[in-house]
């Protein structure tokens, strides 16, 4: 189903290593440990969506990012790389740093924020600075699946946008069509690849790796179909924003406290 054929298994072991290497802090280690414990079964034995334990009709996933909480540690990007065996130089998730003044602004994301952020000097008077984590928005009206000539990119009933690496022809049309730069052609499989919200994890009741390791809970993952879900509560009752709303792609990754500079 997901394009995680390409080595989720190996990624899992590295995930522990990656997690332990993180910026430290008990929260991270403890959560990382629990993620490891519950991920010991092989992904191939994951219940098929729509049958068995997991029923994709019962969920509608959504992602929530509070930009004020992100400290730019890059744990999420490292965890993602380890969990999903993301090739070097490509990113399923990344963090952007904004330094904003009234005259000018500066944005960067060295190695996708994977190694944290070195100090930066800007040539203007900066008034504010903040980090913005980015992932695939799992858009509801998604242009990337619309353009796929063979239907290899698709949206699941529980709201995840996935790529079937077995039928993707590697035309790259979806890469062009995604307004957010979320997709890339995997250099080894030559097929499209992107964030899956760790579909192999969420169908087992776990959170995506990036959410699990985020030490400040800047990243949250929830179920819009579940009563009392904290993400659902924010999406339904708080003021939330989305990226590039004018393109009408209906992102399912919501933001709070997004700045006008962010695209």
């Amino acid at each position: 189903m997901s394009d995680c054929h390409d080595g989720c298994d190996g990624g899992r072991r590295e995930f522990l290593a990656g997690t332990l290497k993180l910026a430290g802090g008990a929260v991270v280690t403890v959560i990382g440990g629990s993620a490891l414990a519950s991920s010991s079964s092989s992904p191939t034995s994951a219940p098929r969506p729509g049958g068995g334990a997991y029923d994709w009709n019962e969920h509608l996933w959504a992602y929530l990012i509070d930009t004020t909480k992100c400290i730019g540690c890059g744990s999420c990007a490292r965890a993602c790389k380890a969990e999903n065996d993301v090739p070097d130089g490509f990113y399923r998730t990344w963090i952007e740093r904004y330094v904003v003044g009234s005259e000018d602004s500066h944005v960067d994301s060295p190695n996708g924020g994977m190694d944290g952020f070195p100090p930066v000097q800007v040539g203007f008077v900066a008034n504010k600075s903040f980090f913005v984590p980015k992932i695939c928005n799992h858009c509801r009206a998604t242009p990337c699946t619309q353009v796929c000539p063979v239907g290899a990119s698709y949206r699941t009933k529980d709201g995840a946008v996935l790529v079937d690496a077995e039928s993707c022809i590697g035309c790259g049309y979806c890469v062009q069509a995604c307004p957010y730069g979320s997709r890339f052609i995997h250099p080894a499989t030559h097929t499209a690849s992107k964030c899956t919200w760790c579909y192999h994890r969420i169908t087992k009741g776990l959170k995506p790796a990036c959410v699990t390791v985020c030490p400040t809970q800047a990243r949250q993952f929830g179920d819009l179909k579940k009563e009392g879900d904290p993400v659902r509560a924010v999406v339904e009752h708080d003021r939330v924003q989305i990226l590039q709303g004018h393109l009408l792609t209906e992102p399912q990754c919501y933001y709070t406290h997004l700045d006008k500079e962010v695209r």
Partner: protein
Amino acid sequence: MPEITGFAFPNDIHVTWSLMIVMYPYITGFVAGSFIVTSLYHLFDRQEFKPVARLAMATSFAFLLVASLPLQLHLGQPQRGPFVIVTPNFTSAMAGFGILYSFYMLVLVLELWFVWRQEIIERARRSRGTKRAFYAALALGTYDTSPEAIEIDHKAIKILAGICLPAACMLHGYVGFIFGAIKANPWWSTPLMPVIFLLSAAVSGIALLILLYQVHAKLERRPVVASCVQALASWLWFFLILTITLEELELIVMAYEKSESWLIISELLTTRLSFSYVTMQMIVGGLIPLILLAVVVLMNRYLHEKVRNTLATVAAFLTLIQVFSMRWNIVIGGQLLSKSLRGLRSPYEPEIFGREGVLVAIALFVAPFVILWVFDRVLGIEEPEGGPAANPPAAPPGAAPAGSHVP
């Protein structure tokens, strides 16, 4: 690693659509453009195009045979290419390619058959053994060259040309649609895109025929009919004016609107694409041929025939460069710009060897000429002098006399 100025989304620094995707519209452009030329004769009875009508049709066919190759070569999983036809996803602009391509191929082959039917029969009659069997098979068993049968041929040619012309325009306009319908990319996303692609296809087709016609005539030791070159030059001028006007209007609108993307697009054009856009597409391939062709058309009476032909030939050559630059600037240019609209990557340099490299691109461009050569061997592009097909398709009364000029 490509260098980035400003900020690009980290996945945006790869040029996913390579040189092959530049070749794809370039080649299909010739398919549509040459068919437009042949239609001017077969459909609109412009007799001045008679000397190039068959060559144009054969050229369209030759380029059509290679038109899908750049796409195939570009795929990450080429062996899965047929999935596009077997399991198409109809919401995709790309899924239509197989259907349009096969449809145009079918109609064009039918049309070719009617146009070349008499030669096929002639050759079947003249030859022996396997050769005879080959031509007999091509003739599909009918050897009827009676005036009535020829009359039917002419009708069929006209009807088929009437289907083929819109099909050719669709095939190429659709290429523009593939880009124009990508809302994620402000450099592509404009409804003008299919129109610009189509007009520049006409430009490239006519320009190619100006060159090809003269080369072919020289090779065949036939005289070059100056009025034909002249007429082609006039139409080239006309289409070039339209193309460049639209290409510029698109920019002017963006600039005047001060659209959100204009800042980065203007930077793209003046830095990364300053050579391929400003120098090649606008000046060398645009302004200069516009002037040359204006001279050819407007001062036609004062110029010696040789001078006119030379000017038209130079202009044709330059416009071929213009169209290639335009394809390059759209396809590659659109990928140098990050969708963050905050950054540009360093210019893309295609690989030399390799599946999507420069050598393959050159081979793709040369292949149609080899096909044309084979076509000429097998069927003969020009009708034999005084041969069976010497009479032109029935021209309606009042049709333009041979050698007349564009309105």
